[in-house]
């Protein structure tokens, strides 16, 4: 059994006839980095909230490490879309708040030393005593990441953590996240709208169809070498095959799967026959449109 198993997850909001998503099933192995991509409104955030225990599904089960997920837990760290730092606490105190939740018996010195490690890790040394309002958007999100890592969870859930950042900042933090995740062997589930971000970070990319009755249509395996880097990745022809496949899905095929009951197809673009193998030029242009939209 995989580390995290999602079986037949379904969510219907009260007053709506059709469920937002249904038949959601996928698995995440320990140490795997999984991204989920889909259009707005397909229920990605709801799935993440169910995994976090902040929301409940209308049906189906989530099993992590052999136990069913019921309610929030310190075993799963969450990085929120809007960083969700407490503005009255300094950087250090924000992270210490999390650390003290996990280890209530630790004394102040131990908590501080522990938090300092994670502040250094995200490159915020020197900003420990600043309040969130004094930090840039990128720095705030680093604090959010440090806070999630500081409780050393079994799994990390990231809800579009870089969505509000400018492209340059996003790039730098992505690089740092790659470094940290590879060093810590962290299991990660992340929502993103950015195709390049998914290819850089993820081992597996879940493609979600449009809602209502959204499903996981395909599971794309990232066949690029694991030591890929943002600055060289685009020289690999394989990168474009994956990218085109993702963009093609988002633009042309994401509406075709609504209500499908089949298990998601596992796809390795470029290494087997797939729908994206044909017609590269138009999808490159389409990729630009996708990037502009987000």
């Amino acid at each position, binding site marked *: 059994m995989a580390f995290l198993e999602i079986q037949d997850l379904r969510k219907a909001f009260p007053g709506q006839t059709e469920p937002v998503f249904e038949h959601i099933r996928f698995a995440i192995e320990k140490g795997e980095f999984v991204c989920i991509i889909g259009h707005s409104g397909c229920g990605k955030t709801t799935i993440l909230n169910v995994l976090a225990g*902040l929301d409940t599904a209308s049906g189906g089960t989530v099993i992590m490490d052999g136990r069913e997920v019921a309610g*929030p837990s310190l075993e*799963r760290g969450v990085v929120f879309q*809007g960083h969700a730092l*407490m503005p*009255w606490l300094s950087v250090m105190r924000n992270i210490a708040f999390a650390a003290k939740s996990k280890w209530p018996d630790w004394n102040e010195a131990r908590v501080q030393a522990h938090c300092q490690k994670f502040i250094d890790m995200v490159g915020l040394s020197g900003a420990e005593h600043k309040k969130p309002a004094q930090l840039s958007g990128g720095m705030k999100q680093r604090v959010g990441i440090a806070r999630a890592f500081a409780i050393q969870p079994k799994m990390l859930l990231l809800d579009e953590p870089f969505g509000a950042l400018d492209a340059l900042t996003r790039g730098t933090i992505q690089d740092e996240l790659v470094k940290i995740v590879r060093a810590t062997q962290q299991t990660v589930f992340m929502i993103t709208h950015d195709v390049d971000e998914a290819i850089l970070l993820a081992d597996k990319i879940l493609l979600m169809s449009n809602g209502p009755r959204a499903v996981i249509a395909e599971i794309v395996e990232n066949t690029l070498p694991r030591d890929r880097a943002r600055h060289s990745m685009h020289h690999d022809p394989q990168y474009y095959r994956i990218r085109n496949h993702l963009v093609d899905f988002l633009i042309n095929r994401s509406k075709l799967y609504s209500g499908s009951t089949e298990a998601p197809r596992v796809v390795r673009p470029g290494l087997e026959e797939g729908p994206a193998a044909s017609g590269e030029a138009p999808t490159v242009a389409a990729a630009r449109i996708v990037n502009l939209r987000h």
Partner: protein
Amino acid sequence: MATHRLWLRSAALSLLFFVLLVGAWHLATLPKAEVQGANDEYAKLMGKGARKAEGFPTPAAIAAAAWQQLSDPFYDRGPNDKGIGIQLGHSLARVGLGYLLAMLFAIPLGFVIGMSPLMYRALDPYIQILKPISPLAWMPLALYTIKDSSISGIFVIFICSVWPMLINTAFGVAAVRRDWLNVARTLEVKPLRRAFQVILPAAAPTILTGMRISMGIAWLVIVAAEMLVGGTGVGYFVWNEWNNLNLTNVIFAILVIGVVGMLLDLAIGRLQKLVTYVE
């Protein structure tokens, strides 16, 4: 530089207004030529001694009275003649006690109302009806049940300062950002720690705003309440001096009430600044 100059100019203008106001007041209250001589005895018999000049007191008379009162603020010569310091002390003690009781009642209850939409809806009609009642309307009821005028004063302060604190606390608690509560949930924060370390600091600026409004109202109400129940306090002082036809002391007391009210507001304003955060 520019702000510095603005500060200087506004101060100069304030001073000018002060001089104009006091000047106009002085001119308007200049003593008229008094008939001296034969009628002196008669005037004395009628209680129109030289000390109690007729008409509205001049600024100089106020200044003299203020000097006299402030140089010996704590004298006590019987129930109808106490120094302004003692009277202020009584008023402040009543306000302080009533206000403290209101805090102890309103802030926890506001927490409950803010956290529970059910309680909010259930208690809302009561709050809406009780809130607009003038606190002095409670006075007869308070006097009848408590049977002590001083404690009744405290009760009136309690009842008038409770509403803004209650409503603001409930509002502040209900408006705490979902994100922060979710952070607390994912960290499995216990309810008490969540209340004190997440909700309280998040709602503190709103709660302090309510406390500031309450203090303003309490200070307005105490004067009226003390006029009604009598005995001690600045309100009683004002009324007593009016009965003595000593307008000089009445005006002095009015100024004191204003200054103390401002200081109370400033103090809570400081506190408010301490707990305010920038998002």
